[in-house]
């Protein structure tokens, strides 16, 4: 089910959290709301969920064309996964997952046995079979997150909303879960909107990235497009490492991997600059080199280990740097 957000503004007193924000989330897509803290991304997610309400005005939120602005959160059909999961800590995993079904009005509430079957089915879906009688505090962070996901899915939501889904996890679990979530999304095909401040996460995971800054949307597009064609210096800097080079009044942005390093003997005045190696870091497959240009500016360069070995560089050596020709 597609989500359509039109001209939403949200203020908290004198503070503007969202300013005239419009966004289309296509049916079945996995969309990332990416931005630094305070950019309004979580507020936007909460407005979609119905946990906050946009300021009165022309703004509109529609699921599959149907205006949901006046529908309370509980009847909007959204699955919401909170940053710290917000599991009910006095309930077992099974009771947590069954909650949404057990609070339905009596007429709509499934039989006990049906609820149990649904819980088991969801536990299997999130790969937590056998943990149904555990309490939240007996689970690891990654397991808790999947319980929260199963709980949100139990009500068969029309859209899935995730607030910083990996924010509270350590690096390794984060990576695994990220991959798992992508796969999971492809299996169930539910329109999903998630908030993150981690550009790598957003680029790797999503079909569509929405870069936000200061209550506004800076750019929307496929990860590759946004990365390769940033519309503003902010997006350039926010998505991955970048060198900012001043040349008089102008500022040029060059990504560290878009620079070739050559022996000083190969220096070509037409394209290259001479520079001196200041720092070398080569633990890992990618080596990072910091060089100092003739005008005193520093430049970060990323090379493969193999290239670095072939150059046989050490700190203090002179090299020629050349902007790599982009396809």
């Amino acid at each position, binding site marked *: 089910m597609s989500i359509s957000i039109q001209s939403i503004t949200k203020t908290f007193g004198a503070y503007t959290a969202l300013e005239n924000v419009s966004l289309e989330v296509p049916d079945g897509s996995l969309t990332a709301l990416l931005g630094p803290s305070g950019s309004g991304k979580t507020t936007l997610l909460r407005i979609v*969920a119905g946990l906050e309400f946009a300021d009165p005005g022309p703004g509109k939120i529609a699921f599959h064309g149907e205006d949901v602005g006046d529908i309370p959160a*509980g009847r909007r059909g959204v699955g919401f996964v909170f940053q710290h999961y917000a599991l009910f800590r006095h309930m077992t995993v099974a009771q947590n997952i069954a*909650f*949404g079904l057990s*609070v339905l009005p009596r007429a709509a509430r499934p039989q006990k046995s049906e609820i149990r079957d649904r819980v088991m089915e969801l536990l299997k879906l999130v790969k937590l079979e056998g943990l149904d009688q555990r309490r939240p505090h007996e689970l690891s962070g990654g397991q808790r997150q999947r319980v929260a996901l199963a*709980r949100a899915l139990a009500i068969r939501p029309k859209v899935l909303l995730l607030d910083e889904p990996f924010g509270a996890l350590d690096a390794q679990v984060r990576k695994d879960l990220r991959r798992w979530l992508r796969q999971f999304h492809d299996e169930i095909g539910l329109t999903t909107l998630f908030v993150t401040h981690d550009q790598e996460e957003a680029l790797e995971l999503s079909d569509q990235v929405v870069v936000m800054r200061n209550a506004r949307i800076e750019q929307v597009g496929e990860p590759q497009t946004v990365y390769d064609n940033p519309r503003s210096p902010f997006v350039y800097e926010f998505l991955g490492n970048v060198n900012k080079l001043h040349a008089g009044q102008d500022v040029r942005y060059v990504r560290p991997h878009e620079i070739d390093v050559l022996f000083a003997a190969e220096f070509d005045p037409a394209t290259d600059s001479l520079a001196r190696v200041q720092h070398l870091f080569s633990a890992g497959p990618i080596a990072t080199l910091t060089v100092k240009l003739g005008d005193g500016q520093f430049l970060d360069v990323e090379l493969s280990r193999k290239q670095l070995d072939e150059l046989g560089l050490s700190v203090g050596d002179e090299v020629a740097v050349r902007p790599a020709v982009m396809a």
Partner: protein
Amino acid sequence: MSYRPVTTESAPVRLFLIACAVLVLALFLLLPLAAVFAEAFRKGWEVFLASLHEEAALSAIKLTLIAAGVSVPLNTLFGVSAAWLVTKFRFKGRSLLVSLIDLPFAVSPVIAGLVWVMLFGAKGWFPQSAMADAFAPAAHLAASLAEYQGFGWLFSDLAVWLADPKIIFALPGIVIATTFVTFPFVARELIPLMETQGSDQEEAAVTLGARGWHVFFRVTLPNIKWGLLYGVLLCNARAMGEFGAVSVVSGHIRGETNTLPLHVEVLYNEYQFSAAFACATLLAFLALVTLSLKTAVEYFSGHDASGKH
């Protein structure tokens, strides 16, 4: 040569500090408690039991139980509502409300009692005579309802009271004063607890389709149950032990408006030391029961909280 942790003092210093602590404990806490029981039993079991069986004593116990029985449930309700309101919602005047909740703790109990005398006393804003006039139609209605067979008895006492609405120097005044003085206990206990818990779980319940009462009974209440119990316990202990405010509104009518603490004082002033201390043992016993229940609550809540995250 032996080493000791940097934060540990030498043996003599340690002994001295421990001795000080034990001395203070014995002198200020254990000695008075022991004295209460020693005095109570000085003239033997018979005098002790007789002092508790006496009519005025029984009436005082009954009155104390009624006052606590009304004020504790009321304050539980008030406390939970107040804590829920100020922790789960943000609104103008919120911090003023939080301070107001503490008002009964801030004023002297004597003032807390006098306020009600000034409001409902003979020379107060709403004296008994004026209220009798105001309640006359209600009294009439209650009186006619009392005529009915079956349920009429429910209204007979009410009719009598409405015809002659006595608040000061009577049970209603004692209940009001007790409720006022013990108002903050439950709210005070719950507000910090609910503040740290935040609203995440309630919001989660809302997105899952839970309506107001479901959110409260199935999510909020289970999360605060130990804090609530703790607050109720303290509230009860104070309600039964309250002296100052109740003393002002009660009028000390023996066998009628004396609560247990007031009864102890009356007996003491009449030089009936053994009887006074016998009644005091009941209050001391109440304190001990409260303490052990409090410890139990702490133990269980600690057990629960160990799995907080």
